[in-house]
């Protein structure tokens, strides 16, 4: 069994309103030194496949659904469990 | 607690031989939330059968007898005051999951309001979402298409600064979580949220209130009852699977919140709007095909109370095979399956020959179904688990439950009213505009989709695009081929009710009427959401009795029935009860939506009228609250006036004489005028001298009932005056709101300043 961990985040320079809003809230809560928050989404995908195929499957899943290349960067980790 | 395993996941409990002490131990260990008296009643029953119960049987009874399911404390009071108000148009009243009222020759509307308080206090996002999901199912299972949602919410002020009790979350966090929950659920299922309340009062700090209401429309020949009156009908579960989420939700709802409540998160279910949306399609299509014999949603009490109530109401018994229920997780015990309150589930009664058709529909909509049993020609409920009978009891005993005549005490406050030194009017006026109960709720309203379905013809925010003000009610046009509309509003006045619950109720009914009349609707039916503290305290029970008495007296005098409702008790934590909170969801009929009226001023030069009498009754008013002044003199309602003034205004509207109309409530006349001016982005000049001899703060800020402000074209003013008993108080125009009393100027404030104060007060907390 494989565990594919995909972290999808905004590309550098793409405005992230959620991150901004959380920054603002944290400042209001007294964390004045918080300057920026990046929000990312993590998917954990469990696949019944061979480790050698892991990355390929992961890349396909990412391309097909999880990422819009115009705004997103991603990291993909493949673990055997 | 003595127990004996009789098969996998099923135990027999030694109840018959238990001492009182042991009974309460069983009660506690099984999390039943019953009283000793109730445990003894249960014991006596099994002694009479000469056997011990299974754990399933005990849980089933506890569920049926919970306050939430049985209304054991409230029913005698409701029966006395609320039930049985005559109405020719009410079709199904206080019987099924929602009330049904005639709309026109062929259609009926269906509606109900309900509370989801305790789960929302613990997990605001999931709790509120689930509240919305549950009320939608209540309307859906009458066979109706849900067409509008409402959501009255009650919190402590968002800037609450006192120390919070352990486990209690800050009102600001709760407010944001609840709004997000309603937004994400309501928007996703595609039902417009068109009305609501966001009300702030310190006494909600330990126990917020989240009420949700739904309105639907159904062709009369397609109304489905929540009952089965025939043997051999299959019982089919449709929709979501059953899990451990929401086990003991009803017992949780009938319990006082404490610091442990946080750990009871399993009592909060998680809704899934994307399962609900196809479920709505499926149910409506199945109903259109005529294959639904009876239907009920699985809400509080889960499968247990649904099977029980559905069969008991129709006078049949049932046989259930619990191993047929589709589960989210393995290894669930039968009792857990029976009481689980997992969301998005419905129980359909379907005749055998139609099961295949239902199966096809389920396939199309990607919804799961499972036949779990059928009705029987007797009075008993029998449950089987892997072939073995593990419950066998008369439905009457489980479902009809218990009832109490609880003791109560009526508190009377001494009449007094502090008289303040005359304030600076401009300053008080601006403070009122930014007080949380008056300030713009646009930040909340716009997060809800109020346009989906394209039926919302009078919006929750009314006025020039980009400058809208709060409307009194929204108007929905339910049918494509008809100009007839339904007006929807919600009202509550806890500040007044806290001083005098009886008059609080009268005022709330009067305000519901005011709101509906303001948009041109004839008040038609109510659903009552009654939220109170701990009914075991005599004073709280007294508040409940007085509130119901007021609701009954007012509605009876006006001839408006309560067709559905909900009681939520035990809204108490850390020794603090909430103020008595009567919430009304009120529906009015708009004969022709082309004549509907909005609250915003329309045109320079139009005449402004005040309808109704202004009195020096400041108890519960926003003005006295912000000035920290005391008064127990609450506004009193003359129901004859309510009736006459409403009829007059509706007549004038029917003749198209009214350009805009707004009721006078929170903040009094000054705030009503400001809201109308803001919405139209046009000012007004007002002279209060026709209100008689009274100090100007009373004239400006009194919240006396049965009052409206109407805008009328000069050429129609004579005709208007002939129809409506009213006083001419000013003219629309300019960029400021100028108010004087004869020669004396009280204030002159520019629209931009008013808007700034009104619009931004809550922005920081929810924006």
């Amino acid at each position, binding site marked *: 069994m494989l565990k594919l961990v995909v972290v999808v985040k905004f590309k550098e320079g*793409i*405005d*992230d*309103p*959620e991150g*901004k*809003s959380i920054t603002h809230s944290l400042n209001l809560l007294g964390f004045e030194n918080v300057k920026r928050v990046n929000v990312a989404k993590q998917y954990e995908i469990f696949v019944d496949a061979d480790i050698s195929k892991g990355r390929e499957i992961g890349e396909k899943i990412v*391309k*097909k*659904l*999880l990422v*819009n*290349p*115009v*705004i997103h960067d991603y990291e993909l980790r493949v673990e055997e469990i | 607690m003595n127990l004996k395993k009789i098969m996998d996941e099923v135990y027999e409990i030694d109840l018959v031989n238990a001492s009182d002490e042991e009974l309460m131990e069983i009660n506690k260990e099984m999390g039943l939330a019953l009283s000793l008296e109730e445990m003894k009643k249960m014991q006596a029953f099994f002694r009479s059968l000469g056997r011990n119960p299974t754990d399933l049987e005990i849980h089933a009874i506890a569920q049926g007898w919970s306050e939430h399911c049985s209304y054991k404390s409230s029913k005698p009071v409701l029966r006395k005051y609320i039930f049985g108000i005559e109405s020719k148009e009410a079709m199904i009243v206080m019987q099924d999951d929602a009330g049904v009222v005639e709309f026109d020759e062929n259609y009926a509307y269906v509606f109900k309001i309900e509370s989801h308080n305790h789960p929302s206090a613990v997990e605001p996002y999931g709790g509120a979402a689930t509240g919305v999901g549950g009320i939608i199912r209540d309307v859906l299972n009458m066979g109706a298409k849900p067409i509008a949602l409402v959501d009255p919410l009650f919190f402590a002020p968002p800037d609450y600064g006192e120390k919070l009790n352990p486990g209690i979350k800050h009102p600001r966090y709760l407010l944001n979580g609840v709004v997000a929950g309603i*937004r994400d659920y309501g*928007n*996703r*299922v*595609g039902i417009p949220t068109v009305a609501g309340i966001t009300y702030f009062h310190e006494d909600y700090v330990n126990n917020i209130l989240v009420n949700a209401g739904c309105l639907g429309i159904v062709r009369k020949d397609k109304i489905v009852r929540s009952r089965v009156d025939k043997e051999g009908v299959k019982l089919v579960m449709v929709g979501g699977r059953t899990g451990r989420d929401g086990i003991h939700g009803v017992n949780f709802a009938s319990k006082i919140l404490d610091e442990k409540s946080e750990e009871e998160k399993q009592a909060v279910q998680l809704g899934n*709007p*994307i*399962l609900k*949306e*196809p479920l709505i399609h499926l149910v409506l299509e199945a109903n259109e095909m005529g294959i639904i014999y009876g239907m009920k949603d699985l809400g509080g009490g889960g499968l247990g109370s649904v099977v029980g109530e559905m069969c008991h109401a129709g006078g049949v018994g049932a046989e259930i095979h619990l191993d047929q229920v589709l589960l989210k997780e393995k290894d669930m015990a039968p009792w857990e399956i029976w009481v689980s309150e997992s969301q998005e589930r419905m129980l359909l009664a379907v005749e055998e020959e139609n099961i295949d058709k239902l199966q096809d529909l389920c*396939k*199309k*909509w*990607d919804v799961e179904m499972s036949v779990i049993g059928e009705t029987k020609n007797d009075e008993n409920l029998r449950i089987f688990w892997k072939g073995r009978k593990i419950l066998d009891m008369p439905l009457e005993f489980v479902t009809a439950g218990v009832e109490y005549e609880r003791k109560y005490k009526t508190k009377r406050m001494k009449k007094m009213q502090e008289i303040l030194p005359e304030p600076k009017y401009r300053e008080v006026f601006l403070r009122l505009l930014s007080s949380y109960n008056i300030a713009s709720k646009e930040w909340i309203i*716009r*997060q*809800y*989709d*109020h*346009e*989906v*379905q*394209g039926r*919302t*013809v009078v*919006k929750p*925010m*009314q006025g*020039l*695009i*980009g400058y*809208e003000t709060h409307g009194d009610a929204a108007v929905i*046009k339910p049918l*494509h081929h008809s100009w007839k509309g339904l007006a929807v509003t919600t009202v509550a006045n806890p500040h007044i009710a806290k001083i005098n619950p009886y008059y609080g109720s009268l005022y709330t009914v009067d305000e519901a009427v005011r709101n509906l009349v303001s948009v041109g609707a004839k008040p038609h039916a109510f659903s009552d959401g009654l939220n109170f503290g701990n009914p075991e305290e005599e004073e709280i029970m007294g508040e409940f009795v007085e509130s119901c008495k007021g609701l009954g007296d007012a509605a009876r005098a006006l001839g408006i029935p309560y067709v559905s409702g909900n009681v939520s008790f035990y809204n108490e934590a850390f020794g603090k009860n909430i103020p008595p909170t009567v919430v009304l969801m009120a529906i009015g009929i708009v004969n022709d*939506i*082309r004549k*509907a*009226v*909005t609250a915003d001023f*329309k045109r320079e030069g139009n005449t402004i009228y005040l309808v109704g009498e202004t009195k020096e009754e400041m108890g519960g008013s926003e003005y006295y609250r912000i000035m920290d002044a005391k008064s127990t003199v609450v506004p009193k309602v003359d129901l004859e006036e309510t009736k006459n003034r409403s009829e007059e205004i509706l007549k004038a509207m029917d003749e198209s004489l009214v350009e805009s109309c707004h009721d006078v409530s929170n903040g009094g006349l000054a705030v009503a005028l400001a809201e109308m001016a803001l919405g139209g982005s046009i000012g007004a000049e007002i002279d209060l001298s026709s209100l008689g001899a009274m100090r100007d703060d009373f004239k400006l800020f009194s919240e006396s009932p049965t009052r409206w402000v109407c805008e009328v074209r000069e050429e129609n003013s004579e005709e208007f005056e002939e129809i409506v008993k009213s006083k001419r108080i000013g003219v629309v125009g300019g960029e400021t709101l100028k108010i004087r009393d004869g020669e004396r100027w009280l204030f002159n404030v520019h629209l931009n300043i008013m808007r700034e104060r009104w619009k931004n007060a809550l922005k920081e907390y929810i924006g």
Partner: protein
Amino acid sequence: MKVAILQMEGTNCEEESYIAFKESGFEPEYLHINLLKKGMLENYDMIFVPGGFSSGDYVRAGAIFAARLKAKVWKDLKRFVEEGKPVMGVCNGFQVLIELGLLPGTDGISEEPEAALATNESNRFECRWVYLKKFSDTIFSKHVGDKITLPVAHAEGRFLADKKTIEKIEEQNQVVFRYIAPDGSRPDYPWNPNGSVNDIAALVNSYGNVFGIMPHPERAFFWYQHPDWNRVKRERGDGWQIFNSLFREIIEAKNR
């Protein structure tokens, strides 16, 4: 002219869309993605992707709907577009068309998305009325007035693309409607409700037959759906003009 109104779990504007097409002289039909099979799209003259929250908008608005369409009928869909048949998406439907690579479609069809409708700058869902100005005459807009008002209701409507794509969109005159302030000037929030680049509210592809719009014309089809109907007299809603444009440009043109 047969219009396929696509449905999947979570689409929720199909009924008002159905009414809008029907009242405009089309023959709309619901087509659920679970029932959609290869070859079926050929039976239709137009595809409409309605608004809603397809699959809950989980992952990204429109992403799952697009991925499922791609997996099922991508070839058919491409052929449909290449044959010049009209495709229209509103709100979530617009998001789906972008995720499919059918819009902005600066070069026809792209296999990967060329743009995104990202989370609103305000970081919240907002339901409000906006003013739009027409910038391009297409089959969807030819008979639409210069300035119209429609409601928006979305959390993800901020149009984003890289500089080159934006330039190309502008060069090829693909922006059909932009948000404007009530006086016609360039809008700030809330008149540009989501922070879209160049105030873009609606786009057409380079072929001129795929159209996506964030605001909801089907919710402003009748005059009484407008919030200001007791101030401004209209015969019909502003959204009707878009459906009417299609009718006149396609059905009437055929009969001429």
